[in-house]
């Protein structure tokens, strides 16, 4: 194909817009969004195609020999006319106040401004706590309607009337009373701010942006946090560090649910006969340390346990290890992933530990991706990166999961199959079978990696697989025509082992194959990589929950332990059996509310600093955005160490120490 006279080649049929974006051409769009199917309503993404004239690039595909002009005077004039029509019907005063909005950026580029002086007050809706609505600013791109209906699966936004009178309204007229689940995808896709984050409206557009990282999932996106009058109001991804960083509504908006939650606590609380009693940090730490000492004296150190329900910084991990191993001397430190899957996760990871790591920024140089499990939900930015590269024709994308719901990745894959977990195992076996039957795999490699490969081979050959599964497997193999292959795997014990077998077999055949496990549920990957544990075979999730039941004193670090547990009932039984639970958490969650005797507030990732490990082994810096007097876990741990007779360690020292423990990653 030719763009502005220059030759380019593509081996996949992608849209003109994606091809242009991939080559760095700037095409104005308003109704286009990566998450949505092309809609073609704004009529701005115009380009000229030789032989066809002016077409919209968002929904037309490249073809062999196609010749495209991206902008000349004629195209620019048409774009400007359409944009001007929108501007003429747009209220004055917003463009400069919220300059980052896509529509405002375009108005600036084309020298336009809103020309309407009056607003219709009836088009305001302030009934929702997180989402502010002013439909005077709506330009009818329908992105909100489409994202809600097609991506989220709700029907909150509705378009009524037709033509010039078309209006977007919330179901039942008031958003606050609708079935809105506050995901805020509509804010994210709205190019004007007609639907806007309520905090941005309330506190104003940020006056400064501070670098940090999001810790809400293991991708640990580098971000910029916009602060307005001391309040964090906005987060966006720092794409200079990670392309498509924080292209996720959790990191962009839903952190507000935590940060501005009504359940936040800023003082330690002690349970008493008449409810919670506010106490000071010193009092709280005295109570906790005395309790620990007592327990150790009376029942031995292993009667004290610690559960990590959420992520803490690398430095804090160092202190946590110190407290557990050197000060208290307990073996019973667990994280939520272990609680869910037992120590076998660790074994799994140690098997992979010699493998090359695929950095998120390098995904684009892969050939074929097989995405297994609900990656879009648990690691949204990864899913965005995969989809983006697939759309730009860089890689083949195969997606396999058992998700009974809409996901963009289903649509944006070359091949998608929804299979139950049992069938998924069979699918992996079918793939193994098909690869093995092609004979030209590296047998030596497999003999090295399987304890008894011949046995395994016989087993593969003996599987009785139904035709449907075989057909899916055949389709998948057809699509793997570009190397390297990477298996992105939302970890799940049930299919892990068979997937590992498949991985080895694929590797013996294609050579360049990677397996990348991702962990949801609290994402405490730092703990997995930083603390060594023995007897990997022994500690199953049931065993761990048993151990917890017999503890006398338990410290829960982080929130949402119960919500993130997959053995909730058993866990709750264990928790209710423990005499004394302290929870260190930013909000009062279920376990704090019902089981803790003492709650010590900890900060959110916006109120602390430290280093975190990303899923692809980069070290990311988290910076304190807001200083509101909350002690961060690091200081709480140090306070405990002193009280238990240990020696304080500072941030720098613990960072240096912890870094030497993870030698396989590059220190900053």
């Amino acid at each position, binding site marked *: 194909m030719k763009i502005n006279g220059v030759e380019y080649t593509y081996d996949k049929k992608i849209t003109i817009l994606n091809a242009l974006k991939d080559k760095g051409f700037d095409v104005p769009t308003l109704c286009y969004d990566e998450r949505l199917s092309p809609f073609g309503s704004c009529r701005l993404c115009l380009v000229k195609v030789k032989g066809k004239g002016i077409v919209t690039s*968002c929904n037309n595909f490249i073809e062999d020999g196609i010749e495209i002009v991206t902008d000349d005077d004629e195209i620019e004039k048409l774009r400007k006319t359409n944009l001007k029509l929108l501007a003429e019907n747009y209220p004055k005063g917003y463009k400069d106040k919220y300059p980052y909005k896509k529509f405002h950026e375009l108005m600036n580029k084309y020298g336009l401004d809103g020309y309407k002086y009056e607003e219709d007050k009836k088009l305001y809706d302030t009934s929702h706590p997180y989402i502010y609505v002013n439909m005077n600013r709506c330009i009818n791109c329908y992105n909100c309607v489409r994202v809600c209906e097609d991506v989220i699966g709700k029907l909150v936004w509705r378009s009524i009337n*037709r033509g010039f009178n078309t209006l977007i309204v919330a179901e039942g007229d008031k958003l606050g009373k609708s079935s809105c689940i506050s995901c805020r995808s509509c804010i994210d896709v709205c190019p004007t701010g007609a639907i806007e984050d309520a905090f941005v409206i309330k506190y104003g557009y940020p006056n400064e942006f501070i670098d940090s990282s999001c810790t809400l999932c293991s991708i640990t996106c580098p971000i910029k946090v916009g602060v307005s009058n001391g309040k964090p109001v906005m987060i966006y991804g720092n794409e200079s560090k990670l392309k498509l960083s924080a292209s996720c509504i959790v990191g962009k908006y839903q952190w507000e649910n935590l940060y501005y939650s009504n359940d936040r606590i800023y003082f330690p609380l002690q349970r008493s006969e008449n409810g919670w009693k506010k106490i000071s940090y010193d009092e709280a730490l005295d109570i906790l340390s005395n309790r620990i000492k007592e327990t150790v004296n009376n029942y031995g150190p292993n009667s004290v346990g610690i559960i990590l329900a959420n992520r803490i910084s690398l430095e804090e991990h160092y202190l946590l290890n110190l407290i557990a191993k050197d000060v208290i001397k307990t073996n019973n430190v667990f994280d939520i992933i272990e609680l869910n899957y037992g120590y076998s996760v660790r074994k799994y990871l140690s098997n992979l530990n010699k493998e090359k790591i695929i950095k998120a920024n390098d995904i684009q140089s892969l050939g074929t991706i097989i995405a297994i499990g609900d990656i879009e939900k648990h690691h949204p930015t990864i899913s965005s990166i995969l989809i983006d590269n697939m759309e730009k024709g860089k890689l083949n994308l195969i997606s396999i999961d058992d998700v009974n719901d809409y996901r963009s990745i289903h649509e944006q894959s070359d091949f998608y199959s929804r299979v139950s977990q049992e069938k998924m195992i069979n699918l992996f076996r079918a793939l193994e079978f098909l690869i093995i039957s092609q004979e030209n795999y590296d047998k030596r490699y497999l003999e090295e990696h399987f304890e008894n490969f011949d046995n395994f081979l016989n087993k593969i050959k003996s599987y009785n697989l139904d035709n449907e599964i075989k057909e899916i497997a055949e389709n998948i193999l057809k699509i793997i025509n570009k190397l390297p292959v990477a298996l992105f795997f939302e970890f799940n014990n049930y299919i892990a082992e068979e997937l590992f077998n498949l991985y080895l077999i694929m590797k013996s055949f294609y050579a360049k194959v990677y397996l990348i496990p991702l962990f949801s549920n609290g994402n405490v990957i730092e703990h997995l990589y930083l603390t060594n544990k023995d007897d990997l075979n022994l500690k199953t999730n049931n065993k761990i929950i048993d151990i917890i039941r017999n503890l006398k004193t338990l410290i829960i670090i982080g929130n949402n332990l119960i919500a993130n547990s997959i053995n909730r009932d058993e866990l709750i039984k264990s928790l209710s059996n423990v005499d004394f639970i302290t929870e260190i958490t930013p909000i009062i969650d279920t376990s704090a509310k019902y089981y803790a005797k003492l709650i010590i507030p900890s900060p959110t990732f916006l109120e602390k600093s430290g280093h975190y490990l990303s899923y692809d082994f980069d070290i990311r810096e988290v910076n304190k955005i807001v200083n509101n007097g909350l002690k961060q876990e690091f200081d709480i741990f140090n306070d405990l160490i002193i009280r238990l007779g240990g020696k304080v360690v500072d941030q720098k020292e613990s960072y240096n120490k912890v870094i030497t423990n993870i030698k396989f990653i590059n220190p900053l």
Partner: protein
Amino acid sequence: MGQMIRINLPKTEINTFYTFSDKELPEEYCRGLSCFVNRSEKPNYWNKAKDQYPRTYCLGKCYLSPSSTHEESYPMIEVLSREPILSKFLNSKLDTLNDYIKLGGMNSYTYAITSMNQIDVINEVKRSGLRGRGGAGFPTGIKWESAYNKKEKKKYLIVNGDEGDPGAFSDRFLMEFSPYLVIEGALIAAYAIGADEIYFYIRREYPKSLYRIKSALIEIKNYFKKKNVTIPKINVEIGKGSYVVGEETALINALMGRRPEPTSRPPYPTEKGLFGKPTVVNNVETLSNIPYIISNGGSKYYEFGFSKSRGTKLISLNSLFKKPGLYEVEFGITLEEIIKNAGGLKRGTLKGLLIGAPLSGIIMPDELNTRLGYEELREIGSSLGHGNIIAFNEETNISELLYEILDFASYESCGKCTPCRLGTKKLRDLISKGFFDKNELNDVYDILESLRRTSLCGLGIGAGEVTFSILNKYNNEVVK
């Protein structure tokens, strides 16, 4: 890669799109262009039409405009072609299926399914040179072939009976007088493309067409049941008051219970149409030609007409002609001849012709030697549309005419795309004072260019075309 299509969502607000989804009026007065250009005949009708809310655009009675729902008479049907391919049926009183069968009806379908394979049928239609009569003029055989070539098992045929163009009443009378012919054509089309389900979409303004098609379907179903022939499932949907729903992708959305907005192509309906399946949308008149093509052969049909426009076409002439009504003509006839056969105007002198109204360029009296054909009309900045010809005389002021057209376009715009939603309204507002100011012309040209070249569907494009054509041809009347 596929797009999921969710259908029939519980979205009752979609009804607000249509003008008549939850309203009924005791009587309706037509606000269409044919009634506009002849409003002086019954000024009170036009006034009522203007006051009426919601509006009714075109009742398919343009041969008696100004018209209303409460009077009825039938148009004259004239044959100017060498053979009455369609008027043969229009002119015979077909009360029952038997009447139709006596004229040789249903033989083509029976022949097609027993003695021809699908590709033969398609080739025959390709050979005939038949092009879509719904407006776009796309070669019917090629459309069928591309649906036929799709691997999917499920395919649909949609019969577009939404004839919304003011001035047109040919589809109305095909359905009303000769429903069997339309259905036979549809059955053959469904066979050719491999569709096992057919949808008829008939506009609400044609209650009789709806009734005739529905009862003809019952007869036909019973007829084939007796003969032990399985025919496709046939559904009939009725419109709720919208012009744009006649656009094929909007129609598909309407049938799926979605907002009837056009969809940006690609994907084309033949790739991904109704319920995501390959779908052919054909116009009523297009399909009515099929039985003839099958029984007489494509090359026979090709003998009629000329150039790239083959066969015959039903032309609807408005009430300002001395002899208004339906004329079956061969392509290639000049506009002059048509007018001559209709006896010229009944009043005043001809000032211009609207062909394919409302959204195609106007033809001036000095262009009447143009021959009727898709390309030939394009060349003079107009288009065939539904073969609807509205003549107007000196009583019509061009700025007022343009206002009516733009008002229609803005009223009927679905609102999906920027130029049409906002541009038609802006142009309408500018012309509402009776002229375009010279200073506004830059703006006007910018907008009409945007309409013509960047609108999503024919409505916006047409609104730009007609404004462009009027500025070209009647500049001194609209610009001050």
